[in-house]
Protein backbone atom coordinates (compact mmCIF):
# COMPACT_ATOMS: atom_id res chain seq x y z
CA UNK A 1 0.00 0.00 0.00
CA UNK A 2 1.38 3.42 -0.90
CA UNK A 3 2.22 6.00 1.74
CA UNK A 4 -0.62 8.17 0.60
CA UNK A 5 -3.16 5.38 0.78
CA UNK A 6 -1.86 4.45 4.20
CA UNK A 7 -2.36 7.98 5.44
CA UNK A 8 -5.79 7.93 3.94
CA UNK A 9 -6.64 4.77 5.85
CA UNK A 10 -5.36 6.22 9.10
CA UNK A 11 -7.42 9.34 8.56
CA UNK A 12 -10.49 7.20 7.94
CA UNK A 13 -9.86 5.26 11.14
CA UNK A 14 -9.54 8.52 13.07
CA UNK A 15 -12.72 9.85 11.54
CA UNK A 16 -14.70 6.68 12.19
CA UNK A 17 -13.33 6.54 15.73
CA UNK A 18 -14.36 10.11 16.36
CA UNK A 19 -17.80 9.94 14.78
CA UNK A 20 -18.74 6.44 15.84
CA UNK A 21 -17.01 6.11 19.19
CA UNK A 22 -19.99 7.11 21.30
CA UNK A 23 -22.49 5.16 19.22
CA UNK A 24 -20.38 2.01 19.42
CA UNK A 25 -19.66 2.31 23.14
CA UNK A 26 -23.33 3.07 23.78
CA UNK A 27 -24.55 0.10 21.78
CA UNK A 28 -22.04 -2.32 23.30
CA UNK A 29 -22.54 -1.16 26.88
CA UNK A 30 -26.32 -1.15 26.57
CA UNK A 31 -26.03 -4.86 25.87
CA UNK A 32 -23.35 -5.66 28.44
CA UNK A 33 -24.09 -2.93 31.03
CA UNK A 34 -20.32 -2.71 31.33
CA UNK A 35 -18.99 0.58 29.97
CA UNK A 36 -15.35 -0.16 30.74
CA UNK A 37 -15.50 -3.52 28.94
CA UNK A 38 -17.19 -1.88 25.95
CA UNK A 39 -14.47 0.78 25.77
CA UNK A 40 -11.70 -1.80 26.08
CA UNK A 41 -13.26 -3.91 23.35
CA UNK A 42 -13.56 -0.91 21.06
CA UNK A 43 -9.94 0.13 21.65
CA UNK A 44 -8.94 -3.42 20.82
CA UNK A 45 -11.01 -3.30 17.64
CA UNK A 46 -9.45 0.03 16.63
CA UNK A 47 -5.97 -1.44 17.09
CA UNK A 48 -6.87 -4.38 14.87
CA UNK A 49 -8.28 -1.96 12.31
CA UNK A 50 -5.02 -0.02 12.25
CA UNK A 51 -3.24 -3.26 11.41
CA UNK A 52 -5.72 -4.88 9.03
CA UNK A 53 -7.29 -2.03 7.06
CA UNK A 54 -4.07 -0.71 5.51
CA UNK A 55 -3.29 -4.29 4.39
CA UNK A 56 -6.71 -5.45 3.16
CA UNK A 57 -8.25 -2.15 2.25
CA UNK A 58 -11.12 -0.35 3.94
CA UNK A 59 -14.18 -2.44 4.73
CA UNK A 60 -17.39 -1.35 3.03
CA UNK A 61 -18.91 -0.35 6.33
CA UNK A 62 -16.12 0.56 8.77
CA UNK A 63 -18.51 1.16 11.65
CA UNK A 64 -20.15 -2.27 11.34
CA UNK A 65 -16.72 -3.83 10.97
CA UNK A 66 -15.56 -2.22 14.24
CA UNK A 67 -18.71 -3.31 16.01
CA UNK A 68 -18.29 -6.91 14.91
CA UNK A 69 -14.65 -6.90 16.00
CA UNK A 70 -15.45 -5.26 19.34
CA UNK A 71 -18.29 -7.69 19.98
CA UNK A 72 -15.99 -10.63 19.28
CA UNK A 73 -13.46 -9.20 21.69
CA UNK A 74 -16.10 -8.88 24.44
CA UNK A 75 -17.27 -12.44 23.90
CA UNK A 76 -13.64 -13.63 24.09
CA UNK A 77 -13.13 -11.66 27.25
CA UNK A 78 -16.22 -13.11 28.90
CA UNK A 79 -15.23 -16.65 27.89
CA UNK A 80 -11.74 -16.02 29.15
CA UNK A 81 -13.05 -14.97 32.52
CA UNK A 82 -14.84 -18.35 32.70
CA UNK A 83 -18.01 -16.79 33.97
CA UNK A 84 -19.98 -18.12 31.05
CA UNK A 85 -22.95 -19.20 33.11
CA UNK A 86 -23.47 -15.76 34.62
CA UNK A 87 -22.82 -14.02 31.35
CA UNK A 88 -24.99 -16.22 29.20
CA UNK A 89 -27.63 -13.50 28.73
CA UNK A 90 -24.94 -11.02 27.65
CA UNK A 91 -23.50 -13.45 25.15
CA UNK A 92 -26.94 -14.10 23.80
CA UNK A 93 -27.70 -10.42 23.48
CA UNK A 94 -24.48 -9.83 21.65
CA UNK A 95 -25.12 -12.75 19.31
CA UNK A 96 -28.69 -11.77 18.61
CA UNK A 97 -27.40 -8.38 17.68
CA UNK A 98 -25.09 -9.93 15.14
CA UNK A 99 -27.75 -10.83 12.57
CA UNK A 100 -29.16 -7.34 12.40
CA UNK A 101 -25.63 -5.99 12.40
CA UNK A 102 -23.95 -7.77 9.55
CA UNK A 103 -26.41 -6.65 6.98
CA UNK A 104 -27.50 -3.24 8.16
CA UNK A 105 -25.40 -0.12 8.18
CA UNK A 106 -27.41 1.38 10.96
CA UNK A 107 -27.69 -0.11 14.38
CA UNK A 108 -29.76 1.46 17.14
CA UNK A 109 -28.36 4.74 18.45
CA UNK A 110 -28.10 4.16 22.20
CA UNK A 111 -26.15 7.30 23.00
CA UNK A 112 -29.12 8.87 24.76
CA UNK A 113 -29.26 5.91 27.15
CA UNK A 114 -25.54 6.27 27.72
CA UNK A 115 -25.91 10.00 28.46
CA UNK A 116 -28.60 9.22 31.02
CA UNK A 117 -26.39 6.58 32.60
CA UNK A 118 -23.46 9.03 32.83
CA UNK A 119 -25.65 11.57 34.64
CA UNK A 120 -27.48 9.01 36.78
CA UNK A 121 -28.33 10.16 40.33
CA UNK A 122 -26.35 7.22 41.74
CA UNK A 123 -23.15 8.61 40.19
CA UNK A 124 -21.21 11.41 41.88
CA UNK A 125 -22.36 14.61 40.12
CA UNK A 126 -18.73 15.73 39.79
CA UNK A 127 -18.15 12.71 37.55
CA UNK A 128 -21.13 13.23 35.20
CA UNK A 129 -19.22 15.44 32.78
CA UNK A 130 -15.94 13.46 32.78
CA UNK A 131 -17.89 10.25 32.14
CA UNK A 132 -19.69 11.79 29.16
CA UNK A 133 -16.51 13.20 27.71
CA UNK A 134 -14.86 9.82 27.93
CA UNK A 135 -17.61 7.38 27.00
CA UNK A 136 -19.52 9.40 24.41
CA UNK A 137 -16.66 11.38 22.89
CA UNK A 138 -13.70 9.12 23.59
CA UNK A 139 -11.54 11.76 25.31
CA UNK A 140 -8.67 10.26 27.29
CA UNK A 141 -8.38 10.61 31.05
CA UNK A 142 -5.28 12.80 30.91
CA UNK A 143 -7.01 15.43 28.81
CA UNK A 144 -10.13 15.39 30.95
CA UNK A 145 -7.94 15.64 34.07
CA UNK A 146 -6.22 18.78 32.79
CA UNK A 147 -9.49 20.50 32.10
CA UNK A 148 -10.88 19.61 35.52
CA UNK A 149 -7.66 20.55 37.31
CA UNK A 150 -7.01 17.16 38.89
CA UNK A 151 -4.06 14.85 38.34
CA UNK A 152 -4.33 12.38 35.45
CA UNK A 153 -3.92 9.43 37.83
CA UNK A 154 -6.71 10.66 40.08
CA UNK A 155 -9.05 11.30 37.16
CA UNK A 156 -8.27 7.83 35.79
CA UNK A 157 -9.14 6.26 39.14
CA UNK A 158 -12.34 8.27 39.50
CA UNK A 159 -13.48 7.25 36.02
CA UNK A 160 -12.77 3.59 36.74
CA UNK A 161 -14.67 3.82 40.02
CA UNK A 162 -17.66 5.45 38.35
CA UNK A 163 -17.79 2.79 35.64
CA UNK A 164 -17.50 0.01 38.20
CA UNK A 165 -20.41 1.58 40.03
CA UNK A 166 -22.49 1.65 36.84
CA UNK A 167 -21.83 -2.05 36.33
CA UNK A 168 -22.13 -3.23 39.94
CA UNK A 169 -25.09 -1.08 40.94
CA UNK A 170 -26.99 -2.46 37.95
CA UNK A 171 -27.80 0.99 36.58
CA UNK A 172 -30.26 0.47 33.73
CA UNK A 173 -29.40 1.55 30.20
CA UNK A 174 -32.77 2.99 29.37
CA UNK A 175 -34.52 6.25 28.67
CA UNK A 176 -36.34 7.38 31.83
CA UNK A 177 -40.13 7.38 31.69
CA UNK A 178 -42.16 10.58 31.35
CA UNK A 179 -42.46 11.08 35.08
CA UNK A 180 -38.74 10.86 35.68
CA UNK A 181 -37.54 12.45 32.48
CA UNK A 182 -37.42 16.16 33.38
CA UNK A 183 -35.18 15.68 36.43
CA UNK A 184 -32.94 13.20 34.69
CA UNK A 185 -32.66 15.35 31.58
CA UNK A 186 -31.65 18.32 33.71
CA UNK A 187 -28.67 16.36 35.06
CA UNK A 188 -27.61 15.54 31.49
CA UNK A 189 -27.91 19.19 30.41
CA UNK A 190 -26.07 20.38 33.53
CA UNK A 191 -23.19 18.02 32.80
CA UNK A 192 -22.89 19.17 29.19
CA UNK A 193 -22.97 22.80 30.27
CA UNK A 194 -20.36 22.14 32.99
CA UNK A 195 -18.03 20.84 30.28
CA UNK A 196 -18.63 23.97 28.25
CA UNK A 197 -18.02 26.19 31.29
CA UNK A 198 -14.68 24.57 31.98
CA UNK A 199 -13.60 25.03 28.38
CA UNK A 200 -14.82 28.62 28.47
CA UNK A 201 -12.90 29.47 31.65
CA UNK A 202 -9.82 27.87 30.19
CA UNK A 203 -9.98 30.94 28.07
CA UNK A 204 -9.74 32.77 25.00
CA UNK A 205 -8.49 30.69 22.18
CA UNK A 206 -4.97 30.75 23.53
CA UNK A 207 -5.46 27.39 25.15
CA UNK A 208 -6.16 24.79 22.51
CA UNK A 209 -7.40 22.31 25.07
CA UNK A 210 -9.89 24.81 26.39
CA UNK A 211 -11.24 25.61 22.98
CA UNK A 212 -11.69 21.95 22.27
CA UNK A 213 -13.77 21.36 25.37
CA UNK A 214 -16.33 24.01 24.42
CA UNK A 215 -16.56 22.42 20.99
CA UNK A 216 -16.99 18.98 22.54
CA UNK A 217 -19.83 20.29 24.71
CA UNK A 218 -21.56 21.83 21.70
CA UNK A 219 -21.13 18.54 19.87
CA UNK A 220 -22.76 16.70 22.81
CA UNK A 221 -25.67 19.15 22.83
CA UNK A 222 -26.16 18.61 19.09
CA UNK A 223 -26.15 14.84 19.59
CA UNK A 224 -28.69 15.22 22.37
CA UNK A 225 -30.93 17.45 20.32
CA UNK A 226 -30.82 15.02 17.42
CA UNK A 227 -32.08 12.35 19.80
CA UNK A 228 -34.73 14.44 21.58
CA UNK A 229 -35.68 17.30 19.25
CA UNK A 230 -38.81 18.19 21.23
CA UNK A 231 -37.17 19.15 24.51
CA UNK A 232 -37.01 22.97 24.67
CA UNK A 233 -34.38 22.99 27.41
CA UNK A 234 -31.98 20.93 25.30
CA UNK A 235 -32.50 23.47 22.52
CA UNK A 236 -32.05 26.30 25.01
CA UNK A 237 -28.74 24.85 26.13
CA UNK A 238 -27.46 24.61 22.57
CA UNK A 239 -28.56 28.21 21.90
CA UNK A 240 -26.83 29.40 25.07
CA UNK A 241 -23.53 27.80 24.14
CA UNK A 242 -23.69 29.03 20.55
CA UNK A 243 -24.22 32.65 21.69
CA UNK A 244 -21.15 32.42 23.91
CA UNK A 245 -19.11 30.65 21.29
CA UNK A 246 -19.97 33.45 18.85
CA UNK A 247 -18.05 35.89 21.06
CA UNK A 248 -15.00 33.72 21.64
CA UNK A 249 -12.45 35.56 19.54
CA UNK A 250 -13.70 39.00 20.65
CA UNK A 251 -12.65 38.23 24.22
CA UNK A 252 -9.02 39.00 23.47
CA UNK A 253 -7.39 42.05 21.94
CA UNK A 254 -4.45 42.32 19.58
CA UNK A 255 -1.96 41.77 22.43
CA UNK A 256 -3.99 38.92 23.94
CA UNK A 257 -5.31 41.32 26.55
CA UNK A 258 -8.68 40.55 28.13
CA UNK A 259 -11.66 42.49 26.80
CA UNK A 260 -14.85 42.37 28.89
CA UNK A 261 -18.17 41.79 27.13
CA UNK A 262 -19.28 45.43 27.47
CA UNK A 263 -16.18 46.63 25.60
CA UNK A 264 -16.17 44.00 22.86
CA UNK A 265 -16.56 45.11 19.28
CA UNK A 266 -19.72 43.32 18.04
CA UNK A 267 -18.27 43.26 14.53
CA UNK A 268 -15.93 40.57 15.80
CA UNK A 269 -18.76 38.30 16.86
CA UNK A 270 -19.73 35.36 14.68
CA UNK A 271 -23.07 36.16 13.08
CA UNK A 272 -23.72 32.68 11.65
CA UNK A 273 -23.43 31.29 15.18
CA UNK A 274 -25.68 34.02 16.59
CA UNK A 275 -28.25 33.37 13.86
CA UNK A 276 -28.22 29.68 14.62
CA UNK A 277 -28.61 30.39 18.33
CA UNK A 278 -31.56 32.74 17.63
CA UNK A 279 -33.32 30.04 15.61
CA UNK A 280 -32.92 27.46 18.36
CA UNK A 281 -34.02 29.86 21.07
CA UNK A 282 -37.10 30.94 19.11
CA UNK A 283 -38.06 27.31 18.52
CA UNK A 284 -37.57 26.53 22.22
CA UNK A 285 -39.71 29.49 23.33
CA UNK A 286 -42.37 28.45 20.86
CA UNK A 287 -42.97 25.29 22.88
CA UNK A 288 -44.23 27.38 25.78
CA UNK A 289 -42.22 25.44 28.34
CA UNK A 290 -39.63 27.88 29.66
CA UNK A 291 -36.69 26.79 31.79
CA UNK A 292 -33.29 27.60 33.14
CA UNK A 293 -31.29 27.18 29.95
CA UNK A 294 -33.77 29.11 27.81
CA UNK A 295 -33.55 31.98 30.30
CA UNK A 296 -29.76 31.95 30.26
CA UNK A 297 -29.82 31.87 26.48
CA UNK A 298 -32.25 34.80 26.53
CA UNK A 299 -29.70 36.81 28.52
CA UNK A 300 -27.06 36.07 25.89
CA UNK A 301 -29.54 36.94 23.18
CA UNK A 302 -30.02 40.36 24.79
CA UNK A 303 -26.25 40.86 24.72
CA UNK A 304 -26.10 39.78 21.08
CA UNK A 305 -28.76 42.38 20.28
CA UNK A 306 -26.12 45.11 20.75
CA UNK A 307 -24.69 44.08 17.37
CA UNK A 308 -27.95 45.22 15.74
CA UNK A 309 -29.22 48.09 17.91
CA UNK A 310 -25.97 49.36 19.41
CA UNK A 311 -27.44 49.17 22.92
CA UNK A 312 -28.00 46.58 25.63
CA UNK A 313 -31.37 46.20 27.32
CA UNK A 314 -30.16 45.83 30.92
CA UNK A 315 -33.68 45.98 32.35
CA UNK A 316 -34.61 42.91 30.31
CA UNK A 317 -31.42 41.14 31.40
CA UNK A 318 -32.16 41.97 35.07
CA UNK A 319 -35.64 40.51 34.66
CA UNK A 320 -34.25 37.28 33.19
CA UNK A 321 -31.84 36.98 36.12
CA UNK A 322 -34.73 37.50 38.55
CA UNK A 323 -36.56 34.61 36.97
CA UNK A 324 -33.43 32.48 37.20
CA UNK A 325 -33.03 33.35 40.87
CA UNK A 326 -36.63 32.30 41.43
CA UNK A 327 -35.75 28.86 40.03
CA UNK A 328 -32.69 28.62 42.25
CA UNK A 329 -30.69 31.47 43.84
CA UNK A 330 -27.15 30.37 43.00
CA UNK A 331 -24.17 32.60 43.70
CA UNK A 332 -23.54 33.08 39.99
CA UNK A 333 -27.10 34.22 39.28
CA UNK A 334 -27.20 36.64 42.20
CA UNK A 335 -23.88 38.12 41.10
CA UNK A 336 -25.08 38.36 37.50
CA UNK A 337 -28.27 40.02 38.67
CA UNK A 338 -26.31 42.56 40.70
CA UNK A 339 -24.17 43.46 37.67
CA UNK A 340 -27.20 43.80 35.38
CA UNK A 341 -29.25 45.78 37.89
CA UNK A 342 -26.33 48.17 38.39
CA UNK A 343 -26.27 48.85 34.66
CA UNK A 344 -30.04 49.39 34.62
CA UNK A 345 -30.58 51.30 37.88
CA UNK A 346 -27.17 52.47 39.01
CA UNK A 347 -24.30 50.99 41.06
CA UNK A 348 -26.05 51.46 44.42
CA UNK A 349 -28.85 49.10 43.40
CA UNK A 350 -26.34 46.46 42.32
CA UNK A 351 -24.34 46.81 45.50
CA UNK A 352 -27.46 46.25 47.60
CA UNK A 353 -27.93 42.89 45.87
CA UNK A 354 -24.31 41.93 46.57
CA UNK A 355 -24.55 43.03 50.21
CA UNK A 356 -27.46 40.64 50.72
CA UNK A 357 -25.24 37.64 49.88
CA UNK A 358 -23.81 35.99 53.00
CA UNK A 359 -20.07 36.61 53.22
CA UNK A 360 -19.04 32.99 53.89
CA UNK A 361 -20.31 31.96 50.50
CA UNK A 362 -18.12 34.36 48.55
CA UNK A 363 -14.67 34.00 50.12
CA UNK A 364 -13.35 32.20 47.04
CA UNK A 365 -15.85 33.31 44.38
CA UNK A 366 -14.01 35.61 41.98
CA UNK A 367 -16.94 37.11 40.01
CA UNK A 368 -18.53 38.47 43.19
CA UNK A 369 -15.39 40.44 44.05
CA UNK A 370 -14.85 41.63 40.49
CA UNK A 371 -18.40 43.04 40.27
CA UNK A 372 -18.17 44.46 43.78
CA UNK A 373 -14.88 46.22 42.99
CA UNK A 374 -16.32 47.68 39.80
CA UNK A 375 -19.43 49.05 41.55
CA UNK A 376 -17.53 50.47 44.52
CA UNK A 377 -15.14 52.19 42.15
CA UNK A 378 -18.08 53.78 40.32
CA UNK A 379 -19.41 55.00 43.66
CA UNK A 380 -16.02 56.53 44.46
CA UNK A 381 -15.48 54.38 47.55
CA UNK A 382 -11.80 53.99 46.87
CA UNK A 383 -10.38 52.07 49.86
CA UNK A 384 -13.24 49.55 49.76
CA UNK A 385 -12.91 49.27 46.00
CA UNK A 386 -9.18 48.57 46.29
CA UNK A 387 -9.91 45.87 48.87
CA UNK A 388 -12.44 44.22 46.59
CA UNK A 389 -10.06 44.44 43.62
CA UNK A 390 -7.38 42.67 45.65
CA UNK A 391 -9.77 39.86 46.47
CA UNK A 392 -10.80 39.53 42.82
CA UNK A 393 -7.21 39.61 41.57
CA UNK A 394 -6.10 37.06 44.14
CA UNK A 395 -8.83 34.66 43.03
CA UNK A 396 -8.14 35.00 39.32
CA UNK A 397 -6.58 32.15 37.42
CA UNK A 398 -6.35 33.69 33.96
CA UNK A 399 -3.27 35.94 33.69
CA UNK A 400 -4.96 38.23 31.13
CA UNK A 401 -7.96 38.81 33.42
CA UNK A 402 -5.55 39.38 36.32
CA UNK A 403 -3.68 41.98 34.28
CA UNK A 404 -6.97 43.67 33.35
CA UNK A 405 -8.10 43.89 36.98
CA UNK A 406 -4.71 45.16 38.14
CA UNK A 407 -4.97 47.96 35.59
CA UNK A 408 -8.50 48.84 36.66
CA UNK A 409 -7.43 48.82 40.27
CA UNK A 410 -4.71 51.32 39.46
Amino acid sequence: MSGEALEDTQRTIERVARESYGRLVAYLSTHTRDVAAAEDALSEALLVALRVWPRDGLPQNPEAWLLTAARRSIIDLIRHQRVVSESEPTLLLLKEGSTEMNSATDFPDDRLKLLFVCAHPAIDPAMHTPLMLQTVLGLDAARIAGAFLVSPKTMGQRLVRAKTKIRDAGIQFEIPDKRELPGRLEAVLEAIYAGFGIGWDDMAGTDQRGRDLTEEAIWLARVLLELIPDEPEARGLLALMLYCEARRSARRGADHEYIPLSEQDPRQWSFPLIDEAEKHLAAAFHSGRPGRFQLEAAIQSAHAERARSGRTDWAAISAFYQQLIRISPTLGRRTGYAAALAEANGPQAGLAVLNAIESDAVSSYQPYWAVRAHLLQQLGKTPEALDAYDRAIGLTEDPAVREFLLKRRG
Partner: protein
Amino acid sequence: MRFALLIYESPEGFKMRSSDGTDSYTGAWRAYHRSLVEAGIYVGGDPLQVPETGTTVRIKDGKRHVQDGPFADTKENLGGFAILEVPSLDIALDWAARCPAASIGAVEVRPLATDTKDRIVG
Protein backbone atom coordinates in the same frame (compact mmCIF):
# COMPACT_ATOMS: atom_id res chain seq x y z
CA MET B 1 -5.33 18.61 55.36
CA ARG B 2 -2.15 20.59 55.03
CA PHE B 3 -0.50 21.08 51.69
CA ALA B 4 2.65 22.87 50.65
CA LEU B 5 2.58 24.92 47.49
CA LEU B 6 6.14 24.76 46.18
CA ILE B 7 6.51 27.74 43.92
CA TYR B 8 8.87 27.43 40.99
CA GLU B 9 9.66 30.68 39.31
CA SER B 10 11.09 31.60 35.97
CA PRO B 11 14.06 33.97 35.63
CA GLU B 12 11.54 36.75 34.80
CA GLY B 13 9.75 36.07 38.06
CA PHE B 14 12.99 36.33 40.02
CA LYS B 15 13.91 39.59 38.26
CA MET B 16 10.83 41.23 39.80
CA ARG B 17 12.49 40.88 43.20
CA SER B 18 14.43 44.07 42.50
CA SER B 19 11.27 46.05 41.78
CA ASP B 20 9.91 48.70 44.17
CA GLY B 21 6.69 46.69 44.47
CA THR B 22 4.63 48.64 41.94
CA ASP B 23 4.99 46.02 39.17
CA SER B 24 2.00 43.87 38.31
CA TYR B 25 3.61 40.59 39.37
CA THR B 26 4.14 41.88 42.90
CA GLY B 27 0.65 43.38 42.84
CA ALA B 28 -0.77 40.01 41.87
CA TRP B 29 1.15 38.33 44.70
CA ARG B 30 -0.11 40.90 47.21
CA ALA B 31 -3.70 40.20 46.12
CA TYR B 32 -3.17 36.43 46.12
CA HIS B 33 -1.74 36.44 49.63
CA ARG B 34 -4.63 38.56 50.78
CA SER B 35 -7.15 36.11 49.29
CA LEU B 36 -5.47 33.14 51.00
CA VAL B 37 -5.63 34.92 54.35
CA GLU B 38 -9.24 36.07 53.87
CA ALA B 39 -10.30 32.55 52.89
CA GLY B 40 -8.93 31.39 56.24
CA ILE B 41 -6.65 28.73 54.75
CA TYR B 42 -3.22 30.36 54.97
CA VAL B 43 -0.92 28.69 57.50
CA GLY B 44 2.38 30.27 56.54
CA GLY B 45 5.00 30.67 53.88
CA ASP B 46 7.78 32.81 52.54
CA PRO B 47 9.49 33.79 49.34
CA LEU B 48 13.12 32.70 49.00
CA GLN B 49 16.01 34.83 47.84
CA VAL B 50 17.11 34.27 44.24
CA PRO B 51 18.73 30.89 43.44
CA GLU B 52 22.21 32.41 43.05
CA THR B 53 22.22 33.24 46.76
CA GLY B 54 21.88 29.55 47.68
CA THR B 55 24.72 27.38 48.94
CA THR B 56 24.48 23.61 48.81
CA VAL B 57 26.30 21.30 51.21
CA ARG B 58 26.91 17.56 50.83
CA ILE B 59 29.07 15.13 52.75
CA LYS B 60 30.59 12.48 50.43
CA ASP B 61 33.01 9.85 51.69
CA GLY B 62 33.45 11.89 54.82
CA LYS B 63 34.44 14.96 52.83
CA ARG B 64 32.54 18.20 52.72
CA HIS B 65 31.36 19.37 49.33
CA VAL B 66 30.07 22.89 49.08
CA GLN B 67 28.57 24.31 45.94
CA ASP B 68 27.22 27.71 44.94
CA GLY B 69 23.52 27.81 44.16
CA PRO B 70 21.00 25.01 43.91
CA PHE B 71 21.81 21.61 42.34
CA ALA B 72 20.40 21.73 38.91
CA ASP B 73 20.67 24.39 36.29
CA THR B 74 17.01 24.48 35.34
CA LYS B 75 14.91 27.21 33.86
CA GLU B 76 12.59 27.27 36.86
CA ASN B 77 13.84 27.32 40.41
CA LEU B 78 12.24 27.06 43.81
CA GLY B 79 11.28 30.61 44.66
CA GLY B 80 9.13 30.19 47.74
CA PHE B 81 6.51 28.14 49.48
CA ALA B 82 3.14 28.47 51.17
CA ILE B 83 1.44 26.08 53.57
CA LEU B 84 -2.34 25.83 53.23
CA GLU B 85 -4.95 24.14 55.38
CA VAL B 86 -7.74 22.98 53.02
CA PRO B 87 -10.26 20.12 52.99
CA SER B 88 -8.89 18.32 49.93
CA LEU B 89 -6.26 18.14 47.20
CA ASP B 90 -8.85 19.40 44.71
CA ILE B 91 -9.17 22.66 46.61
CA ALA B 92 -5.40 22.95 47.02
CA LEU B 93 -5.09 22.60 43.23
CA ASP B 94 -7.67 25.36 42.71
CA TRP B 95 -5.54 27.68 44.82
CA ALA B 96 -2.35 26.58 43.05
CA ALA B 97 -3.93 27.54 39.73
CA ARG B 98 -4.66 31.04 41.06
CA CYS B 99 -1.06 31.54 42.18
CA PRO B 100 0.57 34.27 40.05
CA ALA B 101 3.61 32.00 39.54
CA ALA B 102 1.45 29.31 37.90
CA SER B 103 1.13 31.31 34.69
CA ILE B 104 4.85 32.09 34.32
CA GLY B 105 6.45 29.23 36.24
CA ALA B 106 4.99 26.22 38.01
CA VAL B 107 3.39 25.37 41.32
CA GLU B 108 3.81 21.93 42.83
CA VAL B 109 1.25 20.82 45.39
CA ARG B 110 2.46 18.33 48.03
CA PRO B 111 0.72 17.08 51.14
CA LEU B 112 2.68 17.65 54.31
CA ALA B 113 3.91 14.37 55.82
CA THR B 114 2.35 14.87 59.22
CA ASP B 115 2.72 11.19 60.18
CA THR B 116 6.45 11.31 59.50
CA LYS B 117 6.72 14.49 61.50
CA ASP B 118 4.92 12.83 64.41
CA ARG B 119 7.50 10.02 64.39
CA ILE B 120 10.33 12.53 64.35
CA VAL B 121 8.95 14.94 66.88
CA GLY B 122 7.59 12.10 69.02
